[in-house]
């Protein structure tokens, strides 16, 4: 559909010697949207992100980013997306600034532009005091900031964030979300994030999908979901818990088992 930057149809993936992670995911995400992907542990969120960012392959189904199919244009897609997965992906022996410069040059920036972009991101993410430190010497919070900054070096159109604020202190978390808001509002970046912190989805998501057992169980806007499942004026957390409970009950579980 025009206006959607991410389109997925029937994505399925079963791990060898493991569970079925995705059972046929259909999903559309509008451009310049802040999109929250929710679901319990094991619901398939990380697998979906890995497939959409070309790190894993689906067993069946297909998807496209900005109209480019994953099956054929993965190199072109990789220049359009920025990715910060759940675990930080840093070169432990690389210095903060050097890693940003190397990342920029890997995406085709010349040395001068890569250095300029690195300085900009060092400032934006408050990494000045550790710009010349090796990643292995950074605190957990600074590692995570660098991790996200690396995903932004090449000015991606879509940013995939898998549980991006795990391990961040409240101040860093607020600064992080302020930056995501700015990127979305000023640069039109689509921010696609998974989270277990429902208040983050509530405050920083425009639209959401809930994955359950490898399928999209709900797709809509954040306010609509909250209103539908927790009543008028209800918050997302209450709505999500009601939604999960109703799904479990519909699947045949007893109320006691759900609450256990």
């Amino acid at each position, binding site marked *: 559909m025009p206006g959607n930057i991410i389109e997925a149809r029937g994505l399925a993936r079963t791990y060898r010697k493991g569970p079925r992670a995705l059972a046929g995911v259909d999903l559309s995400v509008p451009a310049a949207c802040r999109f929250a992907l929710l679901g319990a542990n094991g619901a398939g969120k990380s697998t979906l992100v890995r497939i959409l*960012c*070309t*790190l*894993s*392959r689906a067993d069946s189904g297909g998807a496209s980013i900005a109209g480019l199919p994953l099956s054929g244009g993965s*190199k*072109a897609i*990789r*220049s359009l*997306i920025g*990715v910060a*997965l759940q*675990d*930080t*992906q*840093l*070169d*432990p*022996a690389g210095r903060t600034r050097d890693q940003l410069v*190397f*990342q920029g*040059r*890997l*995406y*085709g920036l*010349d*040395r001068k532009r890569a250095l300029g972009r690195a300085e900009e991101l060092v400032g934006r993410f408050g990494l000045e005091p550790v710009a010349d430190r090796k990643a292995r010497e950074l605190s957990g919070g600074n590692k995570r900031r660098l991790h996200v900054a*690396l995903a932004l070096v090449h000015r991606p159109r879509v940013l995939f964030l898998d549980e991006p604020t795990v391990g961040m202190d409240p101040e860093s978390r607020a600064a992080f979300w302020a930056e995501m808001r700015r990127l979305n509002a000023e640069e039109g970046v689509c921010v696609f994030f998974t989270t277990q912190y429902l208040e983050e989805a509530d405050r920083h998501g425009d639209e959401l999908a809930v994955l359950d057992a490898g399928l999209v169980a709900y797709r809509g806007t954040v306010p609509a979901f909250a209103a539908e499942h927790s009543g008028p004026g209800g918050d997302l957390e209450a709505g999500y818990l009601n939604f999960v409970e109703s799904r479990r009950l519909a699947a045949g579980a007893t109320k006691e088992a759900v609450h256990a």
Partner: protein
Amino acid sequence: MRNPGLLIIGRALKRLVSNPAPLLSGLGMSAFFLVVYDAAIGGIGFLPEFGGAGYMAFLLPMGVVSLLFASSSGSAQALSADIASGYFQRLALAPVPRSAFVLAAILADAIGVFASSLAVLGLGALLGAPLSGGLTGVLGTAALATLFGGGVSAASAATVMRSGKVELAGTIGSAVFMLLFLAPTFVPRELMGARWLQVVSAWNPLSYLMEAMRFLVSGLGEAASVPAAFAIAGAAGLGGTALAAVSVRKVLN
């Protein structure tokens, strides 16, 4: 340097320089073997089967090949460090062919083996090998070691990527080390005491590699061994590299 390929190779070479342990241990082992074996059995070099150039001329290819035991595990170690830290996934998200990161690490190992081979040949000259093949012989020998070493390095990298176990990085090098003892390493084939060892050495690819190096460096043996050795080393290099390139998918999927 806009070319990402050069950028990636540059990173691999920097890592080789910052972690020279595999290269240095290969060099140390080669030097040790050359000195000790020459001291222990160098006296047999007067026999006509050794070609009259002295035992060090005969033994020198062993020093070059034994480099590969340790020197070719650098790429596997570097890749496994990137995989363990998660950085390999970040590299894999860049818009460049993913195999480039593996090939660059193998190339860095091959460059290291080339330089180490020259150092071992220089040491051999200091210890009395005549190097009568001149510069062509020295470069030809280093080229053979580089091709074969590239194959060993690539196979080691493929082993680590497929198994996910860094401790297996040295298995291919260990296999090369064992093959060294089943080849005409210390004495020519005709002086091997056991018939079975002569048969095994005829099937051992290292036999041809060392006989060619011997011809190139000191003019010992027959010229026909040289094309056979280049064919073997080239096949090892290409085969290993192809295997490593397709193994990248194992790391990600």
